[in-house]
Structure formats: structure tokens, C-alpha cells
């Protein structure tokens, strides 16, 4: 029955599935920004706590955040 | 402050939202979504069943129609065959009758011819016999007349004798 139904739906079903797969990536940008912000914030907090002259962790963690968000992007889009 | 009041979630609303939303979720799950989803599923299966049933029936009809067609064709073929056979038989009988009639006619003719021949032969024989007896009668009469006297008889005897001798020597 389901096979017959799928056949009946045909193109419309295909369009819907495409639309759904587009939705899959809508939150990606925000999530990437969130990752970068979270890392940077973590670094900023560490620097504040440690009170070093040089804001090492802010820089290092924000860079790591960017790399992390890239890795995340690849991982999410690479998923079938 | 304006933005803060907008993005800062208020405790009271979180409290009431969690409480009432979860309550409604559980009530709806039990009293609404379950019957609705079950109803939908049941209807779908029943519709699917009905459709399958109809499809099967349609296929049966097609099969039956095809069967009818085959039967009709068979019947037609049978009729054709029967008619052909009948025709053949008739033709054969006619031709046989013809042959038989001809043979009979021939036989009759032959017999007739033979009969005629026989009759003819018989008639010829009869005629021959008649002629023979008539000849004998005539000869008897002639002889009677000729051999009434002794002298004549003697002459004849002598003559026969003479002939018989001659032939013997």
C-alpha cells in the first residue's frame, strides 16, 4: 500500500523531501556563530579569571571556535 | 532595558507555561491524539483494504470477461467445426451415393447386357435347333421320297460302300 501511495505522490513527495532537506540546514549558521561565541566567551572568561597581561585564551579559543565551527559545518553537511 | 525586558524570560510565564503546557500535552495525548491518530489509521487501512478489494474485483472481472471471451470463441470454433463436419459428411455421402448409383447403374447395365446376350444366344441356339430339325425334316422327306424303291436303296448302298472302300485303300 505504501509503495503504491509513494508512487501516487510522485513528484510532490520529491519536492517535499527536498524542502525538508533544505530546512535541515537552516539552523546551521546560528549554530556556527553560537559555537564561535561560546568559545570566545570561554576564552574571555578564562582570561578574566587568570588576569594575564596577554589575552591568550580569548585569541586561541576564538580561533579554535572558528575552526570548530568549520569542522561542525563539514560534519553536518557531510551527513547523508 | 527595553531589549532586556524582551529577551529576558519572565519566571512566572516559564512556570505557568511548563505546568499548563505539559498538563495539556498529557490530556491531549490521552483524549485527543490517540483517538484521532487511531481513527486516521483505521480509516486509512479500511480505505486501502477497500481499494485492494475493488482492485481484486476488477481483476476478477477482467479475468472473467477474458474467460467468457475464451468460452465464446471456443463455442464459435466448435460450431464452425460442427458445421464443417456436417458439410463434409454431407459431401461425402453425396459423392458416395453418386458412386454407388453409378456402380449400380453399371451393374444393371452389365446384367442387362449379359441377359441380352444370353437371350440372343438362346435365341440363336433355338433358331439353330429349329433349323436343324427343319433340315432333318426336309431331309427325311427328301430321303423318304427318294428311297422308296429297293433299287434306289441298293444304288445308294453301293455308292456309299464304294466310297467307303475308296477312302480305305
Amino acid at each position: 500500500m505504501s509503495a503504491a501511495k509513494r508512487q501516487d505522490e510522485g513528484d510532490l513527495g520529491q519536492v517535499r523531501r527536498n524542502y525538508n532537506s533544505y530546512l535541515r540546514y537552516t539552523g546551521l549558521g546560528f549554530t556556527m556563530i553560537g559555537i564561535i561565541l561560546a568559545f570566545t566567551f570561554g576564552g574571555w572568561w578564562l582570561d578574566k579569571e587568570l588576569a594575564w597581561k596577554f589575552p591568550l585564551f580569548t585569541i586561541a579559543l576564538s580561533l579554535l571556535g572558528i575552526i570548530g565551527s568549520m569542522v561542525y559545518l563539514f560534519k553536518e553537511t557531510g551527513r547523508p | 532595558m527595553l531589549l532586556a525586558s524582551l529577551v529576558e524570560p519572565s519566571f512566572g510565564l516559564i512556570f505557568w507555561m511548563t505546568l499548563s503546557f505539559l498538563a495539556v500535552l498529557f490530556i491531549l495525548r490521552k483524549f485527543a491524539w490517540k483517538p484521532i491518530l487511531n481513527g486516521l489509521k483505521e480509516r486509512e487501512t479500511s480505505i486501502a483494504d477497500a481499494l485492494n478489494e475493488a482492485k481484486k474485483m476488477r481483476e476478477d472481472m477482467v479475468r472473467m470477461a477474458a474467460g467468457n471471451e475464451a468460452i465464446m470463441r471456443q463455442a464459435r470454433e466448435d460450431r464452425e467445426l460442427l458445421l464443417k463436419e456436417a458439410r463434409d459428411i454431407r459431401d461425402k455421402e453425396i459423392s458416395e451415393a453418386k458412386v454407388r448409383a453409378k456402380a449400380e447403374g453399371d451393374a444393371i447395365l452389365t446384367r442387362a447386357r449379359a441377359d441380352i446376350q444370353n437371350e440372343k444366344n438362346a435365341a440363336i441356339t433355338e433358331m439353330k435347333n429349329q433349323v436343324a430339325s427343319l433340315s432333318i425334316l426336309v431331309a427325311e422327306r427328301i430321303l423318304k421320297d427318294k428311297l422308296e424303291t429297293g433299287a434306289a436303296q441298293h444304288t445308294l448302298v453301293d455308292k456309299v460302300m464304294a466310297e467307303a472302300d475308296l477312302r480305305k485303300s
Partner: protein
Amino acid sequence: MMSLKALLRLASLLIGTLLMGSAYAQDEGHDHGEIAHDHAEEAPATVADAHTIAHAEQGGGKFNAGKLIMDHIGDEHGWHLWGHTTLPLPVILFDTQRGLQVFSSSRFEHGHATYEGYALNESEVVAVNAAGNVDEAATANIWDISITKNVLSLFISLAILLVIFISVAKAYTRRAGQAPTGMQNLLEPIILFVRDDVAKSAIGEHKYQKYMPYLLTAFFFIFLNNLMGLVPFFPGGANLTGNIAVTLVLALITFVIVTINGNKNYWGHILAMPGVPKWVLLILTPVEILGMFLKPFVLMIRLFANITAGHIIALSFFSLIFVFGETSAGAGYGVSVMSLAFTVFMTMLELLVAFIQAYVFTFLSAMYIGAALEEHHEHKESII
């Protein structure tokens, strides 16, 4: 020798750039901070203006668009119906010092009066001392669980959901197997849409049933409240789905469902992605853990921002009529035609958005649930 020197120079250059970059970044950060600060100071100024103008309005009858918009998308104790008529609502306070306090919001007289040591400050209940000044320490003890405009709206919408869907469910049991009628007919395509295009496509044919109640409830709750937010008068008018507390709770429920139902495969992918070298895991695992929280967070922000922005835009166009109407009647009529057209257009758009946002929230929730339930399968990842 040369090459070593060149290398050193390059290294110093790089470090220098980095340092400068960081210094620049810090400056920028300061700038941003200052800008944010400016904004922060500007904002209350405008609110204060709004308040003074609002007060002036009561006296002089001057229209204020900012107040109209903020009243609409904000929350309040008591529900302003029209003119000077306000529906009083119960104020419920849990004071850790004084216990449970329940009284009508009309006691505050629109923020002008103090009642039993409580007062309204920017529509928030605060504790005040005898002199009438805000007592910060006592205010910290107050847990405000009043039935505000948004809470009442929440109850109304939930009651509507209960009435509609229980009656529809009755129709399904009463007329089992028959064609749908009336309300049932209207809602069935949407229910089927949620089932087939949201749950089945995102979670999968075999496991979706367990999550249908939540997905359906969330979908219709968001959809109904989006629609109710478009209605400008009493039962509607509250901006519930554009309220961060509401979207927070919804996103939190999704998060809890995902976290509780996450299988070994899901946790394995978060904590130690299979088939990935150790040093990449060092980055990927924190990122994945962050992503676990960020996903529902984005879900919360998206719904909140979309609905609030839509309301602000629609209300701004609507306000234009009155703003121009105050300068001159002619301009008011002239603008009102265009503005009305725009408002109608925006409302139409909002109707679409109401549906789309409900769909997006439900679908993404379903997708996260689906990801948590996904069984192990061979990955064809070539990237890491």
C-alpha cells in the same frame, strides 16, 4: 643561514600581526562595548520617553507608536482592553519572607499605587519600603507567578486546543471510518501533514508514533498562538509565541525529549565521533557538546525573533496611520489607505509565517529527535 633568518623574520612578522590583530580586536571590543552601552542607555531613555508620552497621552491624548508596539509585544499585569478599560488579573507572588500573596492587579491602579509593600515598576512587581522607594533586597525574594496578560492568553489558547481537539477526537470515535466533517475536515489535512511530512519524514516510519503527541501539540499550540497574536483585540492580542519564556519552555521540552531518548549511537557521535582521528576529536567533541545545547537554543531564538519582528513591522505600519493622522487629518487619511494596504499585506504574510514557523519548529524538533534515534549506519565521510 639565510633561510633561518628569513624564517625568523616571518615568525616575528606573524606574531606581530597577531598581536596587532588582538589589539585591534580589543579596541573593537571596547568600541562594541561602548556602542552596546550607548544603546543600553538609549533604550531606557526611549522607554522613559514612552512613559512620559504615555502619561501625556492620558492627559493630552497624544498618540505614541512605541508604547502601542511595546504594549502589544510585552507583558502586563492586567489586560488593557480599550480606552481606559483594563481587565484586572490576579497578582500571585511567592515571597520567601512573607509567603504567598494573592491580590488583584487593580490594586496597583496602573502602577500609580502601592499595595501592601508592593508596587509596579516598568510592569514588574517590586517590593517598596515605607518611603515608597524600591527595596532591592526584598524584591530579590519575590517570585512573581501572577496571571499576567500572557499567562491568561496561554490558558485561553490551551483551553481552545483542549476543546477543539477533544471534540474532534470524539468525531473520530463517533464516526469511525467515515469521511471527516466540519472542524475535523479542516484539521485533518494539517494533522496528516504533521504526521507524514514532519514526523514520518524526520523521525522515520517505525519510531515516529511515540513522538506524535508532542509534535502535534507543539505544532497546534504555536500555530494557534501565532494566529491569536494577529488578532488585535481581546482573546487575541498577546504575543505569546513571540515571548522568549514560551519558546524557551518549548525548546527545553524538545531538548529533554532528545536527551532522554538519545541512543548509544547518538551519544557516541557527540562524545567521540567514530572514524575521526584523536586530535580532531579534541575540537569536535566540545563543538558537538555545544551543538547539543545550541540547537534547541536556536530553535528558541528563531520562533521568538520571527514572531516578534513580524508583529513589530505590522504594528509599525498600523501606527503610521495615527502618527500622520495627528499631524493633519488629510495626511492621516492619505497614509491610512497605503498603511492599511501594507498592514493587510503584512497580516497575510504573517498568516503564512504563522504556519511556517509552527512547521519549522515542529520539523526541526522532529529532526533532532530523529537524529537521537538514528541507528548506526556506515558513514561515507571523506572530509575528516
